[in-house]
């Protein structure tokens, strides 16, 4: 896993940056639940696109990868949206 991380520094760097920005914003806007939900949706869409683009760049994009990222993004969005309800 560490080898993969060093091989795709830029992609993981972007993801880490996005996670950091999401967490910062999520707590900065507290107690505004609507802003938290909006941040969650933007973050999930970003992750889905990040997964698709990085696999496309690695020439590894196929239907299975697409559905896996879709399913994971759906699960993450459900977890974040339901907890802020």
């Amino acid at each position, binding site marked *: 896993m560490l080898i993969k991380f060093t091989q795709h520094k830029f992609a993981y760097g972007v993801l880490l940056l996005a996670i950091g920005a999401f967490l910062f914003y999520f707590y900065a806007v507290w107690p505004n639940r609507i802003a938290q939900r909006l941040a969650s949706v933007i973050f999930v869409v970003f992750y889905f696109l990040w997964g698709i683009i990085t696999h496309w760049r690695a020439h590894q994009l196929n239907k299975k990868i697409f559905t896996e990222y879709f*399913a994971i993004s759906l699960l993450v969005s459900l977890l974040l949206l339901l907890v802020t309800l």
Partner: protein
Amino acid sequence: MNDMPRRRQRRYKSAKTSKPLGLSKTVARLFHPSSHNYHRSKLLHPESILYFCLIVLASFALVRALRFFPGFGDAILGYASNITAEDVLAQVNQQRTAQGLPSLVINGKLSQAALAKGQDMFADQYWSHTAPDGAGPWDFIKGAGYAYRAAGENLARDFMNTGEMVSAWMASPTHRENILNDRFSEVGVAVINGKLQGFETTLVVQMFGSPAAVAVAPQQPVAPRILDNSAQQTVSVTEVEPEAQVLAGTVLLPNPLQNSVLLTPLHLTKAFFLAVILLIVATLIYDGFVSRNRKVLTAFNKNLGHLLVFGAVTFVLIFFRSGLIQ
């Protein structure tokens, strides 16, 4: 059977004779990547993740449905908060003093208005500045006999302690404006426990006001102003309150829920969600570990990305703070 094409007959026969998998094999295929599951733990297949989505939705619905089974719900769910009216007043005044503003004084009529508002919210089961019958905060203030030049209202629910609640108010521009408004000199606070929309909670109603008693010269009417989240109104009134009545005591209420703490609905929801994440994260780590040892060829590792995202969601769930303000 004889009319079936040969191909279909063969399939039917093999399906009939295949033995069901044992428990250990089923569990192994769920977690252990092998040729049987395309070298990826079955739990990480998209269809399994979609099942997890259904589990998450079902667990959330289950927690929400507990309100319809009071006996069962009360045995599991509980609520406790250590918020007191004195603490609310002290911490609000602390915020005002820090900004160089005079402290607010408790007014009995405003506290009675706050209490009436809280009781009305429990009675009519709503969570808003405006009651279903259209009554606003000003109607409760006037109903308590408080004549004001300016008045405002802050609401809060589901907070465990006063510090977090006041922090939430201060983080919201409109509520902050009420707390740090130099036109307000008096306040009434009601802390009420009860069942709102099926769940036990603590409602805090804070009514701000400046008495009309100090009005000496006739004033020009000022247009009412209502802010988005916190309610605030400035009006001109002709009624003058005697000073002795304005300086009445505070309304303090008993806190009957303090001994009944078990799990709040939010705790239970978080526990279900964290269990799902824990299972997926453990499978992701195991799957990544086995794949690495077998040197399965992958140009890009999906597991690490998923792990980072689930790590962020875990952080959000663990540190997510309860409480709503209005």
